[in-house]
C-alpha cells in the first residue's frame, strides 16, 4: 500500500477525481483550499490579493500496482497544462486499520 499526496490548482479537482475513479482507487481524502508554492517556478497559490489562485490537495492510499498508472496519468495531465501546477508525492503506508 502506498499513499499518494496530490497537490494541484483548484481547477484540476474534478479531473483528478475522475482519474482516480477510472484507476479503481476508491478512497481519498481532500482539502479543497490549501495554499502553497512550487519549489522552482510557477505561480504561488495563496488566495491573497497578489496571488489570488488557490490549490487543493488529495491524499489517496492505493495498491502498489496502481501507483504508476495514477502517477503517469497525473504527469500527462501536468504536461498538458503546465501553467496550472500539479504535483504528486508517493510514500509507503506502514500500517492501516
Amino acid at each position, binding site marked *: 500500500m502506498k499513499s499518494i499526496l496530490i497537490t494541484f*490548482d*483548484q*481547477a*484540476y*479537482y*474534478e*479531473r483528478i477525481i475522475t482519474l482516480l475513479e477510472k484507476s479503481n482507487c476508491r478512497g481519498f481524502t481532500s482539502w479543497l483550499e490549501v495554499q502553497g508554492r512550487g519549489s522552482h517556478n510557477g505561480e504561488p497559490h495563496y488566495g*491573497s*490579493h*497578489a*496571488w*489570488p*489562485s*488557490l490549490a487543493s490537495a488529495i491524499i489517496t492510499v492505493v495498491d502498489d500496482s496502481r501507483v504508476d498508472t495514477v502517477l503517469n496519468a497525473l504527469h500527462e495531465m501536468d504536461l*498538458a*497544462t*503546465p*501553467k*496550472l501546477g500539479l504535483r504528486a508525492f508517493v510514500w509507503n503506508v506502514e500500517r492501516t486499520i
Partner: protein
Amino acid sequence: MSLYASAVKRPIMTTLCFVAVAILGLFSLSTLPIDLYPDVETNTIMVMTSYQGASAQDIEQNITRPLENSLNAVNDLKHITSKSRENISVITLEFEYGKDIDVLTNDVRDKLDMVKSALPDNAENPIIFKFSSDMIPIVMLSVSASESMPGLYKILDDAVANPLARISGVGSVSISGAPKREIHVYVDPQRLEAYGLTIEQISSIIAAENRNIPGGAFDVGSDTYSLRVQGEFKSSDELKNIVVGSSNGSNVYLRDVARVDDSLEERAQQTYNDEQKGAMIVIQKQSGANSVEISNKVLSMLPQLQKRLPSDVKLDIIVDTSDNIRNTIASLVETVLYALLFVIIVVFSFLGRWRATLIITITIPISLIASFIYLAVTGNSLNIVSLSALSISIGMVVDDAIVVLENVTTHIERGSDPKQAAIHGTNEVAVSVIASTLTLIAVFFPLTLVTGMTGVLFRQLGWMVTIMMIISTVCALSLTPMLCSQLLRKNNKHGKLYKLLFTPINKGLDAFDNGYGRLLTKVVSHKTVTITVCMAIFAGSLFLLKYVGTEFFPTADDGRLGVKLELPIGTRVEISQEVTSRLAKEWREKYPEIKVLNYTTGQASSDNTFASLSDNGSHIVSMNIRLSDPGDRERKITEIASLMRQDLKNYPEFKKAQVNVGGNRGGAMGGQSTVDYEIYGYNFEETDSVAQQVSRILQNIKGTADIMISRSDYQPEYQVDFDREKLALYGLNLQTAANYLRNRINGSISSQFREDGEEYDIKVMYAPEHRTSIADIENILVYNSAGQGVRIKDVGTVVERFTPPTIERKDRERIITVSTVVSGVPMSEVVAASQAEIDKLDIPTGINIELSGSYEDQQDSFRDLLTLAVLIVILVYIVMAAQFESYTYPAIIMTSLLFAFSGVFIILYLSGHTLNVMSMIGAIMLIGIVVKNGIVLIDYISLNRERGLSIRKAVVLGGKSRLRPVVMTTLTTILGMVPMAVGTGQGVEMWRPMGTAVIGGLTFSTILTLLLVPALYCLFAYVGVKRKRKNINLSIEKK
C-alpha cells in the same frame, strides 16, 4: 455554495432568471409614459375670485389681501403671487417641487373655506384651478367653418370642448375666435326720440311678445284638451314686425325705429390661422399631468369628434407639444442605441474575440432593461434624465463584466476547464468588482437625496444608475461566469479574417503599451517635473473658468415661438388685426421655416378661461408660431427669434413686443433664460420710476432683449360724473341714470330667441354708428317717472380718467418685475453687468430690488450641486480608503478629479458651451468614472509590489499592463457619450453640454491620471519605505 458557483452549475436556472428579468423589464418599458423631464413642473394652483364692479385697488384691498394672508399658511408654499385687476383677483400659489398636487389642492380649499366669510358679500366664491396660466397649452386646435360659422361656438362647446374636458388630466379647454350668436336690435336714437319711446320699453315689449304661455285644460264633450299660446318667435325676422307703440293713430313697428341684426356678439376675440379667420381650441393640462398621454387621448378622440360636427366644420392641429417630446425622446433613444453599438465595437476590438464580445453584448441590455422595472414601479416616465442615465451607464455596466471575463479567460488560457475557470476566475475578482461598484454607488446614491428642483432631476438619475450598477454587478457575478463556462473555449483558433483584422490592431496596441511604458519610465525618474507641470495645467485651467459663462438650462429648440404684441392701449381690434396681418405676411415671406402661424386678438369673453386669465384686450395680440423641425432647417430658433425682434423694431405701432422661445417666457426649462429684477414697494409712483431706471440700465447692457416692465400702462377711460342735485331735481337717481347708459351702450338683454333647442340672447342697444363719440353719450335721453326726458349732459359731465393698472403682488407685497431675455451671451455676464449699475442707483426707502427669474433657480441649483459634489467626494474617499486600507492611496487617486474638472472647463471653453445644470450633472458623474481609472492603476501597482517587485518596476509594469483596461473602459464611456455630444436630433441642446463635459473631463483626466498617479505613487511609496526603514533602524538601535 457561492453565487457564481451555483450560477455556473445551474445554467438553465440562471438563464431563465435573467430572461424573466428581461421580460419584466420589456413589459415595464411598454407601459412607460413618455415625457420631457421627470415631474419637475412647478406645482401651481390658481385661485380666481371675481367681484363685479370693483376697481383694481378695491380688489387688492378686499379680496386679494385677505385671501393671501390666509393662503400663506399652506404648507410647502414657495411663492404666492397675485394680480388684482378690475372685477377679478387671480392668486397663483407656487409650491415646492415634487409635492402631490391633490393634497395641496385640499389644503388650499380648507384655507379658502376659512376665509370665505371675511370676503365682501357680493364677491363670488373663489374658484381653484389646478394649473397655471403661465403653462403652455399642450394642444391647440384650429377650427375652420363656413355655413356653421354663426353657430360655431355652441357646436364646438357641445361637440368638442365638453368631451375633451372630460379627459383626465386636462386642466381647461377654451374656445376662442368663435363668437356666440346674438340677435341685436340696433336702435336709432333720433327715431326713438321722435316716437317718444325708450330702449327699456322696447326691451320689455320684446320680452312680453316672445312668450309661450300654457292656458290650462278644458273639456270638450268626453275629451280634455290643453290650451296654449305659442307666441315665441320662430325666426328672427318676426321681431321686425312687433308693434312697439303707436303714433298719430297708426302702429309703430320695431322696424321703424330699429334694425334687427341676427349675427354674432360684438366684442369677441378673433383668431386667424394662417390668415384664415376661424376658431381656436386651446387645451391646457393640470400641473403634473403627462402631456403626451393627454395629447394622445386628444388626438385619438379627434376623428370621433369630427364625425359629430357638421360637414363644413374642420378641426386641425396647430400645436401639439407632445410632438416635440416624442421627437426629442426618439432622438435620445437613437443616441442610446448608437452608444450601445460604439461600446460593442470598442469591446470587440480590444478583446478581439467574438465569443467574449457576445457575452458582453448579452449582459449590457439586461442591466439596462432591469432599470425600466424601477421606472414602472415608481410611476416615472421615459424622459431625458432617465434616458441619459441609460446612456451613461452603458459604458459603466460593461466594466464589471469585462473584469470577470478577462480573469476567466486568463484561467482558461492557463489550462483550466471553462467551468472551473468561470468559478475560480470569478471568485478571485468578486471582491474588487463589488468594491468598484460601491465607489460608483457612492457617487450616484447621494444624488437621490438632493431636494428641490434639481433633486427631482437627480433623484431619478441617481436611482437609475445605482440600480443598473447593482444589477450589472449581480450579472457579472452570475450571468457572466455562466455564459463564460458555456461559450468560452480552450485553444481558440483564429481564422484568416481575424488575422487580417486584428494583426494591425494588436500591433498598434502593443506599440501603444510600449510607448506608454517608456513615457512612464521617464515620468517616474522626473517626478517633481511631472507633478509641477500637472499642477500648473490645473491652475491654468481655473483661469478659464472666468471665460466660461454660466446659465441655468440650455435653451432647447422645440420649434415654438410665442409672440406677444401690445399696441397703445385702447386701439381698436380692427387696427390691431390689420397691423398683425401685415407683420404675419412679412414673416411668412422672410422665414420659410414657419410652418404654422396663428394669432388671436380682442377682448376675451369671460367663459374663455385660457384667454381671460392671461392679458387680453383689443390692443393685445398673441401669436403662436410653429417652425419646422430643427433637423430640417439651417437657422436655430434663437437666431430666428433675434431676427424677429429686429423686425419688430420697424413696427412703431407696437408699444411692447416680446418674442418668446419655447412659446413661453422664462419657463424653468427649455425657454431662453430671463433675468428678472423684482422691485418691491407700496407706492406706485416710486416703484414705477425705479422700474424705469432699471429698464434703462438693462437696455444698455449687451445681450439683453425684450425688456419688459410687468406693470401695465394706466388705462384711459371715460367716466360720467353725475351731479346728484340735478338728478334729484329731475326726479332721477344715480342708478336709474347709470342703467340708462348701460342699456344703450352695452345693451339690454331683453329675451332669449329659441331655435333647435338652443337659446340666443336678444340684445337691444344703440346702433353702432350712434355710439362713437362723447357727444353720443352726452345726448342720451334719460326719462324720469313723469315721462320727462333729460339729456345726460344736463345732469352730469363726461370726463376722461386714468385708472390704476393691474396690481401685482408677490409674497404679499406689491411688486413690479423688470425682466429681460438673455440672448447670445451667458446669463452670468448680464447679471454681473446689470448688478454693478443697479448697486449705484439711489433707491427710495421702502423699496427693495431683488434678483429672481432663471438666475434665482440657477443659484439654488448650483448651490445644491456643489454641496452634493462635496458629499460625494467624501463618500468616495471613504469607500476607497476602506478598500485599500490606506489614507494615502485614495488621496492620490482623488487628484484625477482635479483634472476631470480642468477638462470640463477646457472643453466648455473650447466648444463655447456654458456651465449649466446639465454640464454640472456631467461633472458630478465624472467623479465616479474618473476615480475608477485610478483605482485600477493603484490596485495593480500595489499588487505588483506585494509580488515583490521594486517600487519603480511595480509602477512601470503595472501601468503598462493596466493601460489597456483603463483605455478600454474610458473609451467605452467616452464613446457612449459621443452620440449625445454630437447628435443633431431634436432636443440635443439639452444634453449636448452634458455629453461634452463628460468627454472633455474624462479624456483630460485619463491622460493626466496615467502620468500623475504613478508619479505621486512613487513619491509617497518612497516616503513610506523610508519611514519603515527608519522605524526598523530605531528598533534595532533600541535592542
